[in-house]
C-alpha cells in the first residue's frame, strides 16, 4: 500500500472519529439527562415545544447508534460506506422534515435562514462525502490486484 493511500485512510479515520464523537456525545447526553440537554444545548430547543423526556431519549438512541456505527467504521474501513449511509439516511430524512415543517408553517417565516447551513448545508456535505466514499470503494474494488 502506498504512503498516499495510507495517509488518505488515516484522514478518513479522523473524519469518522470526529463525526462519531459528536453523535456519541449528543446521544449519551440525551439519554443520560434529557432535561439538562433540553435546557443547555446551545440552541433554542424549548422553542420547538415542551420537554418530553421519553422522546428525547428515543432520539438519543438514534444518535448513539449512529455514533457506534461510525466508531466501528474508524477501525474497520470496509464498514465506512455502510455507516455513512446510515448516518446520511437519518440526517437527510431530518432535513426533509425541516423542509416539510417550514412549508406547512410549523416554523416561523425566516427559519430557512437559520436552517441553511446547520441543517441543509451539513446534510449536503454528508451526501457529498457518502458519494465520495462510495466512489472510492468502487475504485478500490475495480483496481487490478498486484
Amino acid at each position, binding site marked *: 500500500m502506498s504512503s498516499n493511500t495510507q495517509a488518505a485512510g488515516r484522514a478518513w479515520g479522523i473524519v469518522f472519529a470526529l*463525526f462519531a*464523537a*459528536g453523535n456519541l456525545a449528543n446521544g449519551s447526553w440525551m439519554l443520560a439527562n434529557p432535561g439538562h440537554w433540553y435546557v443547555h444545548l446551545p440552541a433554542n430547543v*424549548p422553542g420547538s*415545544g415542551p420537554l418530553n423526556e421519553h422522546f428525547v431519549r428515543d432520539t438519543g438512541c438514534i444518535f448513539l447508534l449512529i455514533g457506534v456505527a461510525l466508531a466501528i467504521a474508524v477501525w474497520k474501513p470496509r464498514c465506512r460506506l455502510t455507516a455513512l449511509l446510515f448516518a446520511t439516511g437519518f440526517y437527510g430524512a*431530518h432535513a426533509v422534515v425541516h423542509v416539510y415543517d417550514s412549508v406547512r408553517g410549523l*416554523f*416561523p417565516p425566516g427559519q430557512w435562514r437559520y436552517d441553511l447551513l446547520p441543517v441543509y448545508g451539513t446534510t449536503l456535505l454528508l451526501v457529498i462525502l457518502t458519494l465520495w466514499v462510495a466512489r472510492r470503494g468502487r475504485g478500490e474494488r475495480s483496481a487490478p490486484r498486484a
Partner: protein
Amino acid sequence: MKNALCYMVAAAVGFILFAMPFLLYGLGGGHTHGDGPHSDHGARHGGQVLMVSDYHLELVEHPDSVELYLSDAFRRPLRPASCSVEFDGRRTAICEWRSHRSVVSRPIDTQSGLYQLRVDGGPLLTLKFP
C-alpha cells in the same frame, strides 16, 4: 506537505461533522415559540392572521380561491375536521384539504365570507371576514 494538508482538511470536515448533531436544532432558529401561547401573530404564508377563540387562522386570498391555515395558540398547524365558507350570505362552499392547508374556491365578485371550521375534537370556529 500533501499529507499534512490532507489531515488538516480531514480535521476541518471532521469538526463540522462533530458539531452536526448539535447544529441540527438550529443556533438561534425559533422553530415555534418558547415564549408561550399567543406570542406570535405573524403571517407565515403571506396572508392575514386572525384570532378565533384560542386559535389562529391565516387567510391567504386569491382572486378565485382562499387558502386557510389553522393553528393552535402556539401556532402549531391543525387540520380542521370540517371547513366551509358562506360567501356574501348566499353561496356556501366546502373547503378541500390540500397537503397542509384548506382551500376553498370562491366567486370572483365576492365581498365577504363567513368561515366555519370545526377543530378536530374541539369547538366550531366561526369568523366573518372582512
